[in-house]
């Protein structure tokens, strides 16, 4: 403790203070470790609660039948909602994917100065628009003219996905080393060819990750679909021009109705939805780790 003594004061006065500081340090470390453990436990609580309730309720009929006409009746399933979710999210992806990637390429490769600033701000701000507002917009734009439909739902979900895809793609394009682009241009390759054959493939894994996360996000959305796809539990609807149900809409409807059997179907639906979304999310992470360019 020679160095401490030389700092002034005897070891008798410094050592207790030092001990206090170390105790405080240890205390905070324990506290934050505990906090992290608590949050991990919370996640496990949420996931396991849904899993346990869902496993009890799920059966083969759940994915092959539509809900019974009487919500209090047992049996039946969310087959129409499962179809609806995949169809609506599929159409939304078809719309959002080219738009999002095109917008990101323009932002990253062509836009300059003020236009770039405005576009970047707009895509960022779009991320923050509440999805229910997006739903209300699509209602005013589309549903007023053509009625509630799966396609209207897909439009709303596409609007939710586009800013996510733009953000992810642009971030990845920014990470592609400038040398690659310059080398390609120096060989006489045109700019569009360079983008399509050099930049986008290099950033591919990151873009796929971003798109998968956007798809996962769209699968879980409920609010905008309430105002656009509306839901339809009477029969299996595959025509996107008609009102359609989705898993999320059916969970919402069945969970809040107050019928035990409907709630059981909703638990099974929640388990299925969470399983799909988590699988997509985790797969997206795994792909990101294999990426050529990484954050």
């Amino acid at each position, binding site marked *: 403790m020679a160095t401490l003594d030389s700092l002034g004061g005897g070891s008798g006065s410094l050592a207790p203070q030092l001990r206090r500081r170390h105790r405080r340090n240890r205390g905070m470390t324990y506290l*934050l470790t505990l906090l992290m453990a608590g*949050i991990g436990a919370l996640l496990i609580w949420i996931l396991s609660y849904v899993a346990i309730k869902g496993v009890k309720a799920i059966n083969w009929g759940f994915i092959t039948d539509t809900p019974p006409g009487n919500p209090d009746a047992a049996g039946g399933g969310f087959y129409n909602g499962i179809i609806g979710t995949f169809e609506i999210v599929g159409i939304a992806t078809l719309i959002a994917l080219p738009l999002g990637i095109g917008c990101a390429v323009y932002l990253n490769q062509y836009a300059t100065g003020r236009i770039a600033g405005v576009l970047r*701000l707009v895509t960022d701000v779009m991320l923050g628009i509440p*999805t229910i507002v997006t739903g*209300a917009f699509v209602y005013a734009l589309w549903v007023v003219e053509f009625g509630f439909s799966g396609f209207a739902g897909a439009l709303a979900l596409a609007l939710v996905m586009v800013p996510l895809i733009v953000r992810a793609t642009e971030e990845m394009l920014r990470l592609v080393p400038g040398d690659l682009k310059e080398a390609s241009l120096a060989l006489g390759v045109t*700019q569009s060819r360079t983008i399509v054959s050099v930049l986008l493939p290099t950033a591919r894994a990151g873009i796929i990750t971003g798109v998968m996360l956007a798809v996962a996000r769209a699968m879980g959305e409920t609010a905008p679909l309430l*105002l656009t796809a509306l839901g339809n539990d009477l029969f299996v609807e595959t025509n996107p021009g008609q009102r359609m149900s989705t898993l999320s809409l059916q969970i*919402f409807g069945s969970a809040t109705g107050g019928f035990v059997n409907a709630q059981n179907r909703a638990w099974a639906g929640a388990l299925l939805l969470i399983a799909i979304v988590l699988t997509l*999310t985790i797969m997206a992470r795994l792909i990101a780790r294999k990426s050529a360019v990484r954050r």
Partner: protein
Amino acid sequence: MSAASHRAETRKAQALHQQRLRFADTAFRWLVAGSATVVLVAFVATAFFLVRKSWPALSHYGVLSFIDSSRWTPSTAVATVSHPNPYGVLQFVYGTVLTSVIAMLLAVPVAVGLALYITDIAPQQLRRPLAYVVDLFAAVPSVVYGFWGIFALLPVLHPIADNLSSWLGGIPVIGGVFAGPFFGPSYFAAGIVLAIMVLPIVTAICREVFAVAPVSEKEAALALGATRWEMLRMSVLKRSTAGIFGASLLGLGRAFGETIAVTMLIGNSVLSITTSIFGQGATMPSVIANEFTEATEPFHLQSLFVVGTLLLIITLIVNVLGKLVVSRISETIA
């Protein structure tokens, strides 16, 4: 064929090829510029259509009459009467702000703690996985949070709320905030689920803010004999207050717009402002979700669009502010 004409042929073919390439280049450029334009137009159209659909109600009742009242009674609306406005929205603004403030009060300290732990305290090889764990909260769909909240969270909150209201309910002034009884669905319950839902975004931004704290300052603090906690306080937390504030704003923007989980947990009472956090209410998104497809009274649907427009304006302001604050810390964040 002579050598000269052959050369001319080649030159012509090359020129044609060049022309085609240039055309493809220009076409591609227009294509991507077009998609950027569509995105811009979609944004402008969102604002335009919301205002347009709410315009009939706004011009019938007057803009100010909406934020002047906290009674939402569509059944009393009469198409020919414009006063008093049956569509007061103040209680929805109140509900939105109250639930979001409860959420931020809970989520921000936890997020800061988690971010510190993940960036500076956790063992090196655990940092990435732990960050993923927190991110997973963002993957759980809103409707599942609401469902879980009703059945798993409410029974747990019950004794907590009862204790809070019996301890704090008697204190003057703040007592009213904790006045019971607690029935389950409430601002409090919605706020807690919102806290869980905004946790991943606030934690992620805080992590990035803490990560740009200069290593040299951290090392300097340690070299001067600071303990790790002192180093974190002096070199990381102190210079990150603006970043934490920005992260909170971006979290707040999320909380304002969150719909389904809140709708399932807030009780959906649209008639007045309830002071107690254990009371039932409604938020701007929840009233839209609840009444939109059943809006049959005069100016009912248009008034819901007024709520939507107000929600859009408020979230845009909060998000842009948050963005500005955070982007001043570092260009790459958020």
